[in-house]
């Protein structure tokens, strides 16, 4: 091997060493490989989720009844909403009250069903679960119109009762039937997280408590409920978030006997031609729901619920 060749090889080695060092320094500075590979999707998701959110927030601070976002800044939309002469607070109140009542009713309705799915129904559990999931494959509006036909004068219920000389109850187009519709619609969203929560209560623990002489109520209060609580809270949260934004039940079954906040938002974007007001209402709704969600999430240990720990 000549000196010249040796000289070239050493230069190449030196160069390669420097490149390696550079790459390693870059690796220290930059993101890990996984994050780099995921960055296109992360960027896509950021655009998909954040862009509309930022646009809504931008509109909330735009001049009332304008269609240009990020070109003006005003708090007038919020001032109008908080003006005592504006009755939009009633829509907020109805939405939140009905959402809370829906959650409360579903807690009572779903607990025995979830308990049955986990501990009683055995091999029938899957079939019962499917029965609760199946309605989700049909559009919510179609199902609600179905209930309208069931309850309406000369409808299914009225017709059946007429056979025994009775008439159907006059329940359509009331706030009560709106609540019924919400309970019906959101039942699966409470049931399945609750079932998951209950399924995570170890049977051995209950057996042990029973062996030590604990009664049914004590076992429920001291073991079952605390251990199932994360699932119950997730179900309650999910149901509340969905129910607070509900509108179809009040429109189709309730005949708009109450106006929900989502209906007001929809109106602002359509008939009122006041996108900034609609956006401001949406931002306020997000703050209320987001605040409540954060408060509940702070009490949850998702890793434990998902079985990672």
């Amino acid at each position: 091997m000549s000196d010249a060749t040796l000289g070239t090889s050493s230069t190449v080695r030196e160069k390669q060493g420097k490149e390696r060092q550079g790459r390693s320094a870059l690796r220290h500075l930059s993101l890990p490989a996984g994050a780099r590979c995921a960055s296109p999707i992360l960027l896509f998701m950021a655009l998909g989720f954040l862009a509309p959110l930022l646009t809504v927030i931008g509109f909330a601070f735009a001049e009332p009844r304008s269609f240009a976002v990020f070109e003006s800044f005003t708090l007038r939309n919020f001032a109008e909403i908080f003006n005592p002469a504006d009755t939009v607070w009633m829509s907020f109140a109805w939405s939140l009250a009905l959402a809370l009542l829906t959650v409360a009713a579903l807690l009572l309705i779903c607990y025995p069903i979830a308990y049955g799915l986990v501990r009683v129904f055995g091999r029938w559990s899957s079939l019962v679960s499917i029965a609760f999931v199946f309605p989700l494959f049909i559009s919510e509006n179609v199902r609600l119109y179905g209930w309208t036909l069931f309850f309406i004068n000369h409808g299914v219920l009225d017709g059946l009762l007429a056979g025994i000389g009775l008439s159907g109850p006059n329940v359509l187009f009331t706030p009560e039937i709106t609540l019924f519709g919400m309970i019906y619609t959101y039942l699966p969203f409470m049931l399945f997280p609750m079932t998951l929560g209950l399924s995570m209560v170890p049977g051995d623990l209950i057996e042990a408590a029973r062996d030590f002489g604990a009664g049914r109520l004590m076992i429920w209060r001291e073991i079952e409920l605390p251990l199932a609580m994360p699932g119950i809270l997730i179900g309650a949260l999910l149901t509340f978030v969905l129910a607070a934004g509900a509108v179809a039940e009040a429109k189709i079954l309730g005949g708009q006997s109450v106006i929900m906040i989502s209906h007001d938002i929809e109106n602002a974007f359509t008939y009122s031609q006041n996108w900034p007001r609609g956006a401001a209402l949406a931002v306020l709704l997000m703050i209320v729901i987001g605040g409540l969600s954060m408060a509940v999430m702070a009490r949850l240990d998702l890793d434990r619920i998902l079985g990672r720990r």
Partner: protein
Amino acid sequence: MTNFNRRDTLKILGAGALAAGAPLGFPGAALAAREKELNILCWEGYNSAQVLDPFREKEGATVKAESLTNDPTMINRLRSGESKVWDLINVNNPWARKIMYPEKLIKPLPKDEFMPYFDKMLEQFHPPYKWAMSDDGSELLGMTQRFGPYSYVVNTDKISRKTAEETGWDLFNDESLAGKYGILESDDWNVFNIFLVAGLDPFKEHSPEEMKAFEDTALKVFKGAKLIGDIATMNQALISGEIDLHMTGGTYSVSPARADGFPEMRAITPLKGPMNGKGGVSWIEVTSTVNNPELSPLAPEFLKYVQDPEVAHTVAFAEGTFNPVAQMGNKACFDLFTKDELDAIQWDSLEEEMARSVEYDIVPDYEKALDLMNNAKRQRS
């Protein structure tokens, strides 16, 4: 077994991104693609397969139509930048002339090509037809087709046609009817009608006293309503006996119930009212070409296509609602309507009802009135 790894996923994503970016990168290609593409923003009916499929086949084109059920939303879509998306917009009469053309949201049509169609329409649409023309009368802004009176609907087994016509809007001031009527969720029209129930002409500026009367009337009318809902709900409630009448309605809303065998459900136009003696309001759809920088050449072709007697008859009886069409002035089109179809659209009284109606117009203080009405609606609970 096939392993689908991250590398494959990235390849697909890359290909997808290229495909998505292609039209942006090659504007010429995008423009060429528009020759076989048409996007229509319309009221329901024009989006039905019965109307669109023959045109798709004839032109070998991709035709997309989105239907909405109120004019302001459609106008807002154009205002928010969707002029680049749509080729045709189908809204009610005042919008083209008073709003969309002044705001440069639509383009005029070539008069030599389209004016002759108006000669064959019903007499009231003969050229120059006001709502199809620009304010100065120089430009043709759109083509007319469906129309109808739109005031209220009654079950004539419960309230006779004579009583409903003679009593007029005072039906909704009658306390004995509280809880027996519904209100169609058509808020722009409800604004007109609350003014009319208050004895006021909606299409003029209103004094503070008149706005107060509007507010009081809105509170009373919404409080007394059994329900507010869409057309299907109103017809269902009328047929089932839940309600005897509903505010905001006409041939457009009640014709499906009549066609289904309930001729006792009837659109009513009051005999008198506060609009220079007239009590009813009517609508006429005007379809215009959008001011799209890359307007599809199929847009004017579609406007000509729907003038054909058979297609016009299909539009009149497209799914959803049934309506008279201006093209019924052409005998070839009129002869396609059966007796039952003419009954469904109340052809027997159409002319007199249109004569008793003023044409839909912009309410100068609409925004204020709508806010007052929404407040009233919330207080009904």
